[in-house]
């Protein structure tokens, strides 16, 4: 069994009586693009900071690329990170900043031009960092994280503060840097930002895990239903009786019927319900499929944990 990129066992961080990360236990397989999702203050940044040796755990243990968390020097050369906000020297150009950080990390400075091109900053490489837009700063942060050609890339809210266009470019950039099989962890408090690029999800709230697993499994668990409306609202109770008699679980909700149906049965059941309504002489004005979005499911998880 291959070594997981990240393995955490009861990782905990307390500041006084406040528990920021609460016995976090999870494994992250190598080669996945993992969305690390949770509301603001859920403990995402603190968890990432512990992975990077910036914050020491109060309790628990873990490994990063097979090396113990207590010895970040043994693995940080293979880890690239952008945590909190991109931090560079404002007066230095993007290129000179990368040169400085490459020197400190012992990385090959010959990679810098290619990285600037990868993040789309090759034509602004000589501009001082302070002249960059927020999106450009974030992209330079990703270029800096890529300096050591890392096997694990940790990006803390890289889309934070970006406009929709910038967010789309960031998603495309994440897809590009993940293309050669490196493990990528991207945090966000908005799942919809990540669902297009992630194949693995870690959801936390109040420092505790809500979900860890493949993104497609999380999607498969989403609820699906059919919504039915009739020309005459008075027909709804009769129609409900017909459907129930045929074995379908149907609820009357806001002048509509809602039938819970498995995702694979949606088409067949929709046809059957339509035929039964026709046979009962009831005219349907709506018969539509509903699927709970990942964001809805995530929010319901968060709401559940809050309660």
């Amino acid at each position, binding site marked *: 069994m291959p070594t997981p990129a990240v393995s955490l066992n009861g990782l905990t961080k307390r500041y006084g009586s406040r528990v920021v990360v609460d016995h976090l236990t999870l494994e992250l397989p190598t080669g996945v693009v993992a969305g690390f999702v949770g509301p603001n203050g859920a403990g995402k940044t603190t968890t990432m*900071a512990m992975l990077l040796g910036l914050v020491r755990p109060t309790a628990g243990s873990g490994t990063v690329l097979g090396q113990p968390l207590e010895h970040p*020097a043994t693995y*940080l050369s293979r880890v690239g990170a952008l*945590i909190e906000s991109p*931090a*560079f*020297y404002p007066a*230095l150009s993007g290129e000179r900043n990368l040169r400085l*950080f490459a020197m400190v990390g012992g990385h090959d400075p010959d990679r810098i031009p290619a990285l600037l091109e990868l993040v789309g900053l090759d034509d602004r490489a000589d501009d001082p960092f302070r002249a960059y837009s927020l999106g450009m700063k974030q992209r330079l942060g990703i270029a800096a994280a890529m300096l*050591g050609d890392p096997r694990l890339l940790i990006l803390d809210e890289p889309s934070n503060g970006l406009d929709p266009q910038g967010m789309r470019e960031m998603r495309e950039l994440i897809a590009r840097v993940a293309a050669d099989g490196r493990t990528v962890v991207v945090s966000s408090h908005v799942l919809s930002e990540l669902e297009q690029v992630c194949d693995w999800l870690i959801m936390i709230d109040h420092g505790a895990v809500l979900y860890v697993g493949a993104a497609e499994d999380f999607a498969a668990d989403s609820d699906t239903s059919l919504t039915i409306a009739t020309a005459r609202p008075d027909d709804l109770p009769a129609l409900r009786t017909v459907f129930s008699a045929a074995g379908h679980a149907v609820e009357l909700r806001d002048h509509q019927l809602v039938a819970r149906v498995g995702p694979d049965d949606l088409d067949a059941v929709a046809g059957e319900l339509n035929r039964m309504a026709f046979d009962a002489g009831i005219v349907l004005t709506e018969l539509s499929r509903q699927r709970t979005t990942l964001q809805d499911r995530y929010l319901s998880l968060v709401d559940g944990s809050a309660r």
Partner: protein
Amino acid sequence: MTTMIRAQLIRLLRRKTVVLAALGAVAFAGMAAVTVFGSAKHGGPGLAGRAVTLETLTGHGGGTQAFATAASFVGFFIFVTFIALMGSEFSGGTFRALLLRDPRRLRVLVGHLLGVLVVAAGIAAAAELLTFVFSIPMAAARGVPTSEWLSLTGAGDALRNYVTVMAGVVGWAVFGTTLAVVFRSAPIALGIGFVWAGPFEHLVAGAWNAGNRWFPGLVLQSLIAGGTNDLALGRAVVTGIVYVAVAAVVSLSLTATRDVTA
């Protein structure tokens, strides 16, 4: 360690900073020579209560005396410069970014400080050389003979003045770095450092003369000046070493143990 020092040189040795430092060194040298030579009297008191007399300037170390005397007055400037340089590393998150590349915290902090000190040493050397050059016409104007300045003993005195000034610079640098490490914020550290080493020490020492022997900033000021009437050089060195050691232990232990959250 050398990597961190070289990285700091990449940061600091830009054309703009080099030009500004050069202009600063020229301005410092000119003002030092004009002020010290202009105020020196026969056997009378000079700057800082220490006897910088025309007779002193005639001696072997006369060529660099203006450098040593004036340097004791720019300690505060050195202090706030180091606070700003080191504090901005914490405020701006670049210290955190450096640790992501090299997690050996003490090495990063010390290497960072040494890198800035290397640049400071270069600026101090340039300032001393320029002060010597500016002192020549000032000596001629005041009728001070300069024949002793270029002797071997004069070179030794120049070196001693340089080492003394750099010892003070190191002290101010460590104090400034400690404040930056403790507060992890350039504005807060600057505010506290400014109030302490600026008005507080001088006002209290004005009312309580022993403050000149015990306040860290005033001790370093005496050290850079090569000793004062209140504090001899030897005692300034010993007291300064104790203060710097305490400050170094505080900043190193905090850096090693505290979470990096900014």
